[in-house]
């Protein structure tokens, strides 16, 4: 990896839902130009951890986050951190494609409009076209931008959600099992897209699919029962894991 300081650092993060501890003392850093994959069996806390990175756990009343998470060195849980600004800088793509029941154009324009990024109609047109192009969807939808976003196929919807996320020009993109609701062809397209987005955005992706983690990421974190078992280069994790539990999981012993 590079020598520049990491884009995001999380140190000693612990999350409780009510009295239940969901993740315990997790420390991970994400570099500017890499894709980090979080793998692990269901309920291991990888999604919970991902959601702490843009404070989406704030929407869960019972969630309590401890530890230190920094974006470019600034504590994102500090009182002076504006969560609206944070989420504009750290975008998110969800497990199930969730386009708004609006037109394709309005879906992409939603974020820029909220954050006042476009000065004019032509500005907005440019942002929409650029975002859809980067998400690899422009060619498929450019003639029907006024159609409803929910009328697209599942894979297209997910790419629309990615376009929506990158429309506000984030620095980090969090993806929570973005392909788990998609067929293999749509999945391949998203993976290709992740390759293309890499470098422009720091990306963290939660996935159940270990081949996917191996294909798209540079570093992989393996979670089990709320703890971070192992975090290192993807090639090391998959060919030469240091921990017995990691080895058991990637060889399909459990999970």
């Amino acid at each position, binding site marked *: 990896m590079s020598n520049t300081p990491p884009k995001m650092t999380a140190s000693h993060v612990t999350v409780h839902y009510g009295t239940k501890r969901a993740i315990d003392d997790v420390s991970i850093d994400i570099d500017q130009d890499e894709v980090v994959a979080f793998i692990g069996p269901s309920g291991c806390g990888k999604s919970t951890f991902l959601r702490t990175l*843009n404070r*989406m756990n704030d*929407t869960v*009343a019972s969630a309590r986050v401890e530890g230190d998470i920094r974006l470019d060195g600034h504590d994102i849980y500090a009182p002076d951190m504006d*969560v*609206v*600004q*944070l*989420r*504009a800088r750290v*975008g*998110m793509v*969800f497990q*199930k494609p*969730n*386009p*708004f*029941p*609006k037109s394709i154009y309005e879906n992409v324009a*939603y*974020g820029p409009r*909220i*954050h006042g990024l476009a000065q004019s109609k032509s500005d907005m047109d440019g942002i929409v076209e650029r975002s859809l192009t980067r998400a690899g969807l422009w060619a498929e939808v450019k003639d029907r931008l006024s159609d409803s976003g929910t009328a697209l196929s599942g894979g297209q919807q997910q790419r629309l*959600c990615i376009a*929506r*996320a990158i429309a*506000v020009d984030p620095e980090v993109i969090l993806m929570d099992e973005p392909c788990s609701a998609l067929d293999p062809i749509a999945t391949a397209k998203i993976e290709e897209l992740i390759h293309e987005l890499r470098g422009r955005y720091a990306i963290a992706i939660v996935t159940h699919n270990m081949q996917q983690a191996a294909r798209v990421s540079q570093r992989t974190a393996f979670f089990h029962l709320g703890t971070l078992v192992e975090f290192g280069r993807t090639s090391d994790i998959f060919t030469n894991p240091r921990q017995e539990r990691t080895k058991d999981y990637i060889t399909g012993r459990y999970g």
Partner: protein
Amino acid sequence: MPATALLFILVGLSLIGWLTARARAARFKVAGQRFSSLPGHFGWYVALWTIVPPLIFLAIWSTVAPALVTDAVLSTPAAAQLPPPGFDRAAILSEARELGAGRAYGAFHGLARLLAPAYAAAQDRYDWIATAAALLLAFAGGAFAWTRSKPGFAARTRVERIVMGALLAASLIAILTTIGIVLSLVWEAGRFFQVVPVHEFLFGTHWSPQVIDARDPGASLGAVPLFWGTFFIGAVIAMIVAIPFGLMSAIYLTQYAAPRTRRWMKPILEVLAGVPTVVYGYFAALTVAPAVRDLAVAMGISWASSESALAAGLVMGVMIIPFVSSMADDSLAAVPSSMRDGSLAMGATSSETIRKVMLPAALPGVVGGVLLAISRAVGETMIVVMAASGVATLTLNPFASTTTVTRQIVDLLTGEAEFDSPKTLAAFALGLTLFVVTLLLNIVALTVVKKYREAYE
């Protein structure tokens, strides 16, 4: 035999059938075979066959028997003195029947006293026939079921079918009642429309049922002022109150309130829905109406009515708030939380998320809820009886007195009503119109809500 005794006997027979059939079925055994029906099912099978046929017979009999009794009485010699069919004849016969049954101790008509013994005898005879037939049916039904109960007989599915039949009958009764109500409304309204042309009623703008010109009753039975008043109070003023407050409280409760706040706030809001409408009526007439009038006078409207549309509409709106709120609550809750998360993750604030994503997505459900609320407000009676005026005026001024369809129906049917004058029959025509309008509103609203639900499920 008194009806209760017969009923006890039938229940007793049925119980005996149940016990014996079950005991007998307990001994049904075929080596190496398992039957689908347990002994209890055989018991129920016999018991139901014992009690259901006589009960059905008695139900039918009770509708036919009075006519048979009367026929028997009419064929006695004393009946020859009866006046020709008409009011007097019916009065004498009914007196004789009451005397014969021992429920009355004297009669105005001497002839009634003469006919009473014949009534008593005929009633007695037919009662015995009914009792005998019912018992016979009970035995026949029980015996039929008994002979069919053999090892391997699917008593279980038969019982299941009878249960289904009973449930079907119960639901049919509700439907038939509705149909009956509609038919009687249509029938009475039809009589009204024989006297007053439909178009004069629906489009006439003059309503004064107190003074009806017998040569042209339609001229003073134009219902447009009533329709307007109903619309003005129920769909305009009440909704101006109910929609914003209902919607905003639903948004607060679903999107902002902490679970603990929601837990005590929602029931309190629902208490509003449980307040009897009469109490709202008092509140409107005694508290809100004078306040509204004083306000209007202070504003320089010296002629403001103390039975203003505004007072009734405001209170009706308050009454509808929990209704709108819970419909909006439902439709907001039906918007997938992924929509909300998606918007929040873009950096939108809660209010932006609600305004730009949640409300547009929930809009069809909210609209459906509002339509249902309107249909309730339009049919609401008690508040307008107490707070609205009886005078039909076609006005846009909320401080003027206005009346509604329901208020007028009450006025037309109370007091000295003759049930064949255009004045009283007009109540049925109004009722029918109201029924059709609220029915249409409900159908539209439910279709909208259903379409919208499907979009997310």
